[in-house]
Each structure stands twice: as structure tokens, then as C-alpha cells.
């Protein structure tokens, strides 16, 4: 058991898997000698050899295509896309190839690849270093999408993703890399040290894909969220003074529908929070599922708190970011019913 930041936990997961499975290899832009712009692959090349962890050309589609070919052969490539915003050039490879290879070949070939990408906002990264594209993956049959919110989960989910025989999009909320973040950007920041979720077991363990975590239990309202928003929602629940079930989905696909339904049927109210723009975001799917499965339990209309329907703007980081104040508003709104 070691206290780790999320970066260290992810690095440790990769280290464990490189050690354990000779079929695992890592590549991506700047991940080799340098260890990645966020240092997630730090020292892995030095420790495991240049052919286990190496730099790739700046060609996201080529990175994914190469990984698919390797995966079809039987390797377990783990690739990094430097920012989730830059996964888009590879979208066709992910959708038309990785996601569909098993199905169309009747299981003859498959793409057991893991695609890691730093994700989300809150770091003054402007338009193209802040986006949250999970919705464009959730809709794609054949892809799994994972979003951890703390070091313990990050390591366990990453190992589970690498071991998963299906292609996994692994989105790492970069704002959480070095510490939890509750959206109060003007307050003193804390690191991961001292947080219980930062206590990371040594060696191999997994957090299963498709199991949500109930971060806290309550009876008046269910809050569904993932990534950075787990921390924002946590503080907002306190500030609103509501008795909430706080559910960290951890995986968008596969989704832990049972946990969601059980909670909303218990509380009768639901607030959904994500950083991505609201319209067409994954919150719509969650809201629809809740309506379809819990309609007669609902005391209030399900509310979504999300990024505005504008591109992510540099100077307006905190006006755009769905911070605690907006979550509190939504909680109060549903509680009025």
C-alpha cells in the first residue's frame, strides 16, 4: 500500500502490466524517453526497454491503426493520445475498425487495445486541451469507455482495461492528476496525500469494468457523475445540505444500470453532472434511462448540470466549468419538489 497521485497510480498500473505480460507494450507521442507530457509513462522505457515503451509519430489515426494491427495479432498495446481533444483524427479507426473488428470477423480478429487520454477541463487549457468527448464513444457499439476519479480506481481500472479483450477508451481527468478538485478553484488546493482513495495497493489488482461506486449514501436524491465531477458533486451535496446518494459511474460503457436504478428508485430524484456540453451529452442517455426505468418513482424531473453549449473558452474557465454552485442549484431545484 502506497499513497500515490493519480499519475503515479497510472504509472504503477502500466509498470505492473509491463512486468506481468510480455504482450503489453506502450507507445504514443512523447511517452518513451521523456515519459509523457503528464509523466504517466515516466521511467517505463528505462525500466522495461525501448521496445516496450516508445515514442510514436504525431499521427493519432496511425497510432490507433498500428495498435489495432498489433492487437489483432495478439499483443496488448496500450497507447496514449496526448489530449482527449486529439483523439478525433483517430475516431474513424476507433469506430470503424477497433469497435467492429470482432463483430464483423465473427470473432476471428479483435482489438484488445487500451487508449489512454488526459481528459476534461479546469486547467486553463483553452478549447483544445479541455474537452470531454465521452459521449461520442458511448454511442459506439463495441467500445468500452472508462473514467476514473481517484488513484485507487485509476490503477485498478487501468489494469482491468488492459486485461479486457475489448477496445477500451480510458479517459483520465487531468485536473485530478495531482489532487482532488472540487471546483473551488479559488480555495487552497490539496494533493492526494491524506485521501483514502490515494492509498494504492502494491502489485496487481483490478477494479472491474461496469461497476459503479457509491461514494456516499443518502435517501433524498441520486447524483450521477464521473471523473472530476465526483469531487465537485461531493462538495455541492454538503453545501446544499441534501441527503444524497453520490454515484461515481466509473464506466460509461458498460454502465452499472442496476446501481443507478436501485438508487433512483430509492431516492426518487436524480441529478446528472458532467463537464461536457449538455446537448447530446452522455447526460441525455442517463436521463432517458432513469425516466424509462424509474418513472413511477420520480418526484421531480431529472436535472442535468453540464458544460454550456459553447466551445470550451479559455478565459471563461470558471464560468463554463459546472462548478459546485451550479450543482447546488440543481440539487435545490429537485428538492423543491
Amino acid at each position, binding site marked *: 500500500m502506497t499513497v500515490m497521485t493519480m499519475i503515479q497510480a497510472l504509472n504503477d498500473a502500466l509498470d505492473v502490466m509491463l512486468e506481468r505480460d510480455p504482450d503489453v507494450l506502450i507507445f504514443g507521442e512523447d511517452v518513451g524517453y521523456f515519459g509523457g507530457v503528464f509523466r504517466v509513462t515516466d521511467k517505463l522505457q528505462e525500466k522495461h526497454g525501448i521496445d516496450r515503451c516508445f515514442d510514436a509519430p504525431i*499521427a493519432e489515426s496511425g497510432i490507433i*491503426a498500428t495498435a*489495432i494491427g*498489433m492487437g489483432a495479432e495478439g499483443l496488448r498495446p496500450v497507447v496514449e493520445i496526448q489530449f482527449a481533444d486529439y483523439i478525433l483524427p483517430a475516431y474513424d479507426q476507433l469506430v470503424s475498425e477497433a469497435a467492429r473488428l470482432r463483430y464483423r470477423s*465473427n470473432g476471428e480478429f479483435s482489438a484488445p487495445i487500451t487508449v489512454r487520454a488526459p481528459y476534461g477541463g479546469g486547467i486553463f487549457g483553452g478549447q483544445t486541451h479541455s474537452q470531454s468527448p465521452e459521449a461520442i464513444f458511448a454511442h459506439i457499439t463495441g467500445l468500452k469507455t472508462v473514467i476514473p476519479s481517484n488513484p485507487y480506481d485509476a490503477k485498478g481500472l487501468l489494469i482491468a482495461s488492459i486485461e479486457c479483450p475489448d477496445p477500451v477508451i480510458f479517459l483520465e481527468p487531468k485536473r485530478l492528476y495531482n489532487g482532488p478538485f472540487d471546483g473551488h478553484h479559488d480555495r487552497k488546493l490539496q494533493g492526494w496525500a491524506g485521501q483514502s482513495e490515494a492509498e494504492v495497493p502494491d502489485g496487481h489488482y483490478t477494479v472491474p469494468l461496469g461497476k459503479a461506486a457509491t461514494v456516499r449514501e443518502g435517501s433524498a436524491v441520486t447524483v450521477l457523475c464521473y471523473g472530476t465531477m465526483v469531487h465537485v458533486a461531493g462538495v455541492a451535496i454538503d453545501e446544499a445540505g441534501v441527503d444524497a446518494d453520490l454515484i461515481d459511474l466509473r464506466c460509461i460503457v458498460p454502465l452499472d444500470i442496476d446501481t443507478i436504478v436501485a438508487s433512483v428508485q430509492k431516492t426518487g430524484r436524480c441529478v446528472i453532472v458532467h463537464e461536457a456540453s449538455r446537448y447530446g451529452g452522455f447526460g441525455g442517455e442517463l436521463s432517458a434511462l432513469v425516466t424509462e426505468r424509474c418513472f413511477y418513482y420520480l418526484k421531480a424531473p431529472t436535472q442535468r448540470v453540464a458544460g454550456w453549449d459553447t466551445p470550451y473558452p479559455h478565459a471563461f474557465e470558471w464560468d463554463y466549468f459546472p462548478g459546485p454552485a451550479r450543482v447546488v442549484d440543481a440539487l435545490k431545484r429537485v428538492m423543491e419538489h
Partner: protein
Amino acid sequence: MTLPRNARFRIPEPGGRPGDTPHFGDIDIPAGGEVARPHASSAEQDIRDLPFTLIRTLGDDGAAHGQWDPKLRPDILRIMLRDMQLNRIFDDRMFTLQRQGKTSFYMKSRGEEALGVVPALVLGQQDMCFPTYRLVGWLIARGYPLIDLVNQIFSNKQDPLKGRQLPVLYSARDYGFYSISGNLGNRLGHAVGWAMAKAYRAKDDIAIGYIGEGTSAEGDFHEALTFASVYKAPVILCVTNNQWAISSFSGIAGAQETTFAAKAIGYGLPGLRVDGNDVLAVWAATEWAAQRARAGLGATLIEFFTYRAAGHSTSDDPGKYRPSDEADHWPLGDPIERLQNHLTLLGEWDEAQHEAMLEGLTKRVRSAIKEGEAIGTLGESKPSVKEMFEHVFAEPDWRVLEQRNELGV
């Protein structure tokens, strides 16, 4: 200085349109044997002229000439002849069956049969082919059962891909044939990744990937070449330049400006430009590139210069955009006829043998189709509908389970 618009903004146009006399521009065709064969370990900078010529062995006299002649035994030549002919007969039958509504779609390889058949014979059982939809010749040469092709084309109960794929988009791992999809070009990078995986495992196996000349305009083509070059992947990357991409002639992909083989130079890779209708040249070029790859010298780009003698697919009518007799004017002839002539010249083949072969192959195709028809043509029989829900993931998730339930299958 005022240039007219057309001097500034050029839309390439082909040599002929319907009604015109076919014309292939100024194709420079060296005689068989004219191009020297550099050693397979040559440095790329010493062979930068190769992309601008055309490697040929079979001369107008039907004989094999020059250094690229692979000097094959006649029995190998006869196998190639048979497999190419089988490919053609199968295609013709299937095309007709589509017209009869027995399948939804079909695509022929006419004129390009050598490109599937020959490399299938040159390369090893452990090598993997990343094909286009015109490469059924590979499967035929590797002995893939015709009935399995037929069943997939009919999407019937015995369809090996369980009704999930279009006809012609085969997958046959055991035959070294990677899964095709409708999205053009995407799989060239998979070939590179596969080859890197083999190299990573320190195995001798290599990969061969194909892409149409039209599709070479896709960004994925460039990325595949870049990865192949940077990591010295043991892979052969082939552009099948059959002059047409549906209705767009090769000039829309840049052929008026240079050759497709010349693209190799931008990656420091050897580029070969090969008469794709000359089985011996196809054999020799594939072998040369395979030697390099297995020797750790990395990738080769080969442009196979050929002609799509049929329509693009059963959905296409080429008479709408090119002279109807264009195929007859193709200056490099037909790969089957040329091989037949060559074998005849060698005294290893005659009309009677050819007739007998045709009859035998036609029978094989007929009987496979008959067998397939008995199982069912499109819509007459199909795999269990529950196959629709299989293999989305390795293990189904609740959505698939619920929905299968909802559909009652």
C-alpha cells in the same frame, strides 16, 4: 499578369469518356526484361529510379526476359493459371447471381486476378494479408473452400461470418486473410501493426497490405507508410493501380503528376512499379520485397499497374463514365491470357488442356453454388437472429442481453 481561371485551377480529366476512342495518356511501357533487378539489400537511395519505370518480364513474344524473371517451374505457372481462372469464373457466376437477386452485392477482380493469386503463392502460411475487396484470388489460391465464399455471399445459414458482413468482405484468419470492411484504406496501418508485432516477437513472419490507387489519397495511407518507415516494419505495402476508382480516373488521385510508386521516396522506402498483369513480374517483386522484410530491411511500397476490366461493383455501370471498349485498349493485356500464352510458348500448355481446365473449374464453381443454393440464397435462409447480438463484445453486456430478449431471440 492575369491568367484565365483554367490556367490556375485544374481539374484533371481522363483520356476518354463514353463515345471517345480509348486513350491512356502517354504510358511509357518498357519491354519485358528491360528493367534491371537490384539486389534485395540495395539502399533506397541507389534505386530511386525504380518508381518511375515499370518492371516487366513477359515480352510481346510471350517469353520471360531479364533479371526479374523468377524462373518458376511450369507446375507453379499452371497453378497460377488455374487459380486466376477460377477467380474469374467464380466472379462471373456471382455477378450473374446478383442480377438474379440471389445476393445483395458483388465485386469482381477481372483483370487483376494476379494480385491476389500470386502473392498468396509467394508468401508463407504464417504471413498475413490485409486485402482489399478485389483480393478473393488470395483465398482461392490458399484453398479456402468455395462453398464458404458462396455461403457468405448468400448470407445464408452457413455464412461463416454469420450474416454480419456484406458479400465480398471476407475474413479468414486461418488462410492468412484479414477481415475487410467497407471503409477504404483503414487497414493498411493494421498491416504495419501486425508486422511490428511479428518483429516484436522476433518472428520471421511478415504482412502484406493492399490499397486501391484511388484510396491512396486517404490520410491513413500516409500514416501507415510513416509508421512502416520509422519502425522498419517487415511489411509489403501495395497500391493496386487499376486506373479507376468507381468513376474517378487515377488522375484524381494524382496519377497525372507522378507514379504511385514514387510516393515511397518520401518515406525513404524502396518503391517498385510493376506490371500487374505480368504474373512473373508480380511474383518477382513480391519475393524481392519479402526478402527485404524478412532480412530486417523494412518495408517496400509496390505499385501494381493494372486495369479494372469490369465495373466497380454490381451497383456500377462503367459505360456511364468511360469508353465501353476501354478495356480492350488496355496496353498491358490480360493476366490470364498472357500467362496462357507464355505456358503455351514453353510447350507446357495447349488449347485442349485449357478447355479441360475451364470445364473442370466451371464444374467446381457450379457445384459450390448449387450447394450454397441448397442452403439458401439471400433471404431464403439466414443465420439465427441471435447472431446479431453475438461478438459485440467478448462478453455481452446488459443492453445486448435485454435487447435480444426484447426481440425474443
